[in-house]
């Protein structure tokens, strides 16, 4: 079998195409920042971006004009405030109008589950009394054939490509995720192709028996990208860079400041190591933290 292990630039180049539906997942933990930057570097356009919690990386993708639409359930910079490029796109259509399809977390999680499960739709007890269904034609209802109850139904999500970050992979490309696992397994299994960036590639995965493992044969590409989740965190490797998250707020408030920062640190560098160096980021190493 050909190896799934390849450089990130190659993975994005091969699998992420203009017009694709792309999900980058990671629930505050293990957010695939390095991969998002690579999509920006390779100037993908007309993307439909899917993510439960669009935060800084989606702010950057939106602000750089990669996205035509966004499917989400909560958009913000956790613990800090708004994401300004997201707001500017919705409120003012800059740099281009952004169509939104808005759900709740429970529903987004269920939609990924349906996608992973080969089902066309998901059922939930949700949205009771909420205005969200009025603005989202994908939130419909379904009647239980046994009790007659009406429940919400929404379509499965099956991204063209799902991108996640994980702690480690072995040399075959089997991936282990530890800690807050979010919706990553579902997002990967729902996708037509999945790219996983990892902190390190190891000889033996040493996965506990019932842990979250993604076998290599469900993945399209596995890329070793240390600190690839910065400024989010990788449990057991490094903590979240709260200072960066706070510093992002003023950078992203102003269009020109934002563009200058992205040009210098993302477009102006060739990979994640270059980005970290350019942006003056020194993540806390694994020795300094517990995990």
């Amino acid at each position, binding site marked *: 079998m050909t190896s799934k292990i390849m450089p990130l630039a190659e993975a994005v180049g091969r699998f992420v195409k203009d017009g694709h539906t792309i999900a980058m997942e990671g629930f505050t933990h293990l957010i695939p920042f390095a991969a998002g930057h690579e999509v920006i570097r390779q100037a993908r356009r007309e993307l439909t971006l899917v993510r439960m919690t669009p935060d800084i990386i989606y702010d950057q993708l939106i602000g750089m004009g990669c996205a035509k639409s966004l499917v989400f359930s909560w958009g913000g910079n956790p613990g800090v405030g708004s994401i300004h490029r997201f707001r500017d796109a919705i409120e003012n259509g800059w740099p281009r109008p952004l169509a939104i399809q808005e759900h709740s977390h429970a529903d987004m999680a*269920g939609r990924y589950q349906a996608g992973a499960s080969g089902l066309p739709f998901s059922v939930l*007890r949700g949205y009771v*009394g909420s*205005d969200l269904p009025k603005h989202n034609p994908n939130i419909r209802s379904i009647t239980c054939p046994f009790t007659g109850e009406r429940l919400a139904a929404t379509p499965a999500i099956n991204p063209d490509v799902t991108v996640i970050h994980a702690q480690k992979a072995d040399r075959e490309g089997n991936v282990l995720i530890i800690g807050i696992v979010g919706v990553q397994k579902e997002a990967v299994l729902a996708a037509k192709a999945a790219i996983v960036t990892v902190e390190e590639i190891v000889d033996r995965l040493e996965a506990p028996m019932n842990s979250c493992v993604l076998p290599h044969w469900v993945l399209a590409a596995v890329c070793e990208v240390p600190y690839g989740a910065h400024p989010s965190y990788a449990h057991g490797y490094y903590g979240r860079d709260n200072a960066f998250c706070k510093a992002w707020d003023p950078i992203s408030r102003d269009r020109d400041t934002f563009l200058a920062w992205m040009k210098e640190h993302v477009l102006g560098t060739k990979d994640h190591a270059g980005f970290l160096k350019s942006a003056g980021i020194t993540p806390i190493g694994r020795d300094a933290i517990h995990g």
Partner: protein
Amino acid sequence: MADANYTSTEIMTIEAARRLKNGTVCFVGIGMPSAAANLARLTHAPEVVLIYESGTIGAKPRVLPLSIGDGELAEYADTVVSVPEIFRYWLQGGRVDVGFLGAAQVDRFGNINTTVVGNDYAKPKVRLPGAGGAPEIASNAKETWIIIKQSKRTFVPKLDFLTSVGHLDGGDSRARSGARGAGPTAVITDLGVLAPDPVSRELTLVAIHPGITVEQAVASTGWDLKVAATLARTAPPTASELETLRDLHARTAKAHGTLAME
């Protein structure tokens, strides 16, 4: 603030914490709900069960999480499950006693807006973060509590957008809607506590914090606020409550101020 010994945020957090009983299963929103729930755990309710939507069950963070998915939550949890599981098996499965929420706006029936400010959804004046877990917390927990600073900006006569259901249009409209649970049973603010009228379900001021007047509460409400016939007065923070809360915030600031694992 009438008493310089504590802030309005502190009394709000402390009063909310006091209401959490030992052993209660609480689905905790980030921010003020999380501060109150952890204060309860560190004071009178050591066995309160804290669930965060990131999948951490029985979380016992040493410092307050900055995000809903901090490593701190996982590190000291009884178990960590996936996000689909937390919503399906634990919330929708009916395992949550109290859903503890924040809000940008509430109306007189405890309905919540966290979506947009301005009445054009497609072209909002302010785009808020959105629903997150709240719509299903609000409709699946056995009861919900809302913690919010009270002002005419937050206590509005009509929501710009109904994100998460409270008592809907009042009366039995919530029950008829198919929502489960009792809905909002308490709204804890920096001025006092509101609870729904047993029949109309309209939020009624039932307690005020030390040094706060009814007039202040009325003036900070965007509708004609009803006041209970017998109004309770919140007990001032005890020295121990204040010390525990401040220690927690100090530890939190120290941890989050650095790049260390929070």
